[in-house]
């Protein structure tokens, strides 16, 4: 197995607490009510929001609140081995936890009987697509004028070669020891999404969580700058 950390640096030259380059643009699509394009390392992600609009068919309507319906999808050409179009078990799970994370901050009670549809398309993937997707979706929701308590943001930390690092690359994701993606409400630091796989001691978890929080707060700034840029003109 190759060495992932050498002289304190990672194979792509990053320090353990360094993010990949990130670019965010708000309001990029013509048809959607709100949208966002995001590049995060080798990830290229588009998010579009439609609604709130009346939920169809009627029997799925909730008379007390809006349904937040996120759909995470990977384009067939977004990965090395072509992915069969359509949802699989992985994307269905990501769609579910993404919907729940976003619902947390949305004032859903203002729009009973409606859905807020959040569509996330991964066009090019390089580890960390769910964090990129949630981060883009949050910008698209704000762009769509959806009332929210905060703009959620996501980031991952993990462990490679026994070292806790921020924002795993593709090689680190495949060969590393652990991955810990989180989504937070940056204002309150409440955790909206947390998943983990691999092997971490409790102490390493604390370290990874702190690193992920730090990363998320930095990405949060980029989200806000992107929205300001669109509306300040």
């Amino acid at each position, binding site marked *: 197995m190759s060495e992932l950390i050498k002289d304190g640096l990672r194979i792509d030259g990053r320090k353990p607490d360094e993010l990949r380059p990130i670019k965010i643009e708000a309001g990029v699509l013509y048809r959607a009510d709100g949208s966002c394009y995001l590049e995060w390392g080798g990830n290229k992600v588009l998010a*579009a929001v439609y609604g709130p609009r009346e939920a169809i068919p009627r029997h799925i309507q909730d008379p007390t609140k809006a349904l937040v319906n996120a759909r995470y999808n990977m384009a067939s050409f*977004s990965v090395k081995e*072509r992915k069969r179009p359509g*949802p699989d078990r992985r994307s269905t799970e990501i769609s579910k936890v993404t919907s729940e994370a976003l619902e947390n901050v949305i004032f859903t009670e203002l729009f009973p009987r409606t859905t807020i549809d959040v569509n996330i398309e991964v066009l090019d993937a390089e580890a960390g697509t769910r964090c990129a997707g949630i981060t883009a979706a949050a910008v698209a929701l704000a762009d769509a004028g959806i009332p929210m308590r905060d703009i959620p943001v996501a980031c991952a930390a993990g462990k490679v070669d026994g070292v806790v690092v921020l924002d795993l690359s593709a090689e680190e994701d495949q060969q590393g020891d652990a991955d810990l993606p989180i989504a937070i409400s940056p204002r309150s630091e409440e955790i909206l999404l947390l998943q983990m796989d691999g092997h971490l001691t409790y102490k390493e978890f604390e370290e990874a969580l702190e690193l992920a929080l730090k990363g998320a707060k930095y990405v949060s700034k980029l989200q806000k700058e992107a929205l300001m840029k669109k509306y300040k003109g």
Partner: protein
Amino acid sequence: MDITGRISAVKRDYLISLAKEGKRADGRDFDEYREIKIDREVLRNAEGSAMVKIGNTTVMAGIKLEVGEPYPDSPEEGAMTTSVELPPLASPEFEPGPPKPDAIEIARVIDRGIRESEYIQLDKLAIEPGEKVWIVFIDIHVLDYDGNLFDAGSLAASAALQNAVIPNERYELGENLPLPINLPPVSCTFVKFGDAIVVDPNLEEEQVAEARFTVATDANGDIRAMQKGLSGSFIIDEIKNNIKRGQIHAKKIRKLLEG
């Protein structure tokens, strides 16, 4: 309801009355495309890619190559398949789920243009004749829908194939090589409403369209694929005229592809 959604009666009347005077709501002539933009090699994981904008319509095409078995009737040739995805991201009318007839029709018309113009040199895509060949997957992902997916999708597929590589390295078959291609087909689409037949319909024109016509021509201007769609009809002279108009448009669009 179809993928275009509903148009108001007032707007329908307005478009038809404008067309009677030879005008279109966005100020274009009947024979005028919206601005076309082609961005190439936009993705890393795809073997070839292109993003095409025609006005506010945006589509992304990604090419993937995989090793597979040849078809029994062409054991010494590679194979190709074309799919179109209409994700709910691109329009409030698009629904998730397996491809619906609209998406399949667009994919098949684009596929015929590429296949019949012999754009991809499939005969050069055999690895072990009769056993192993390259399969070329052309996946067209609509990102923003404001009409004319036939031409936008075809153009994106053609541009993406131009920069596609055979991923020999990934399969330990030697060095990556450019995908062998000939000259691309160019697709040109018209819709008819009232007495007008206009090229490159935007969404509201598709919403009032009674009939649709697509013609794909090769570098010589010869016809390689055609499709008449929707429940309205054309008279024979209109079809002939559409083809001639299509040949002229294709010449101009071809310059964008080759330029």
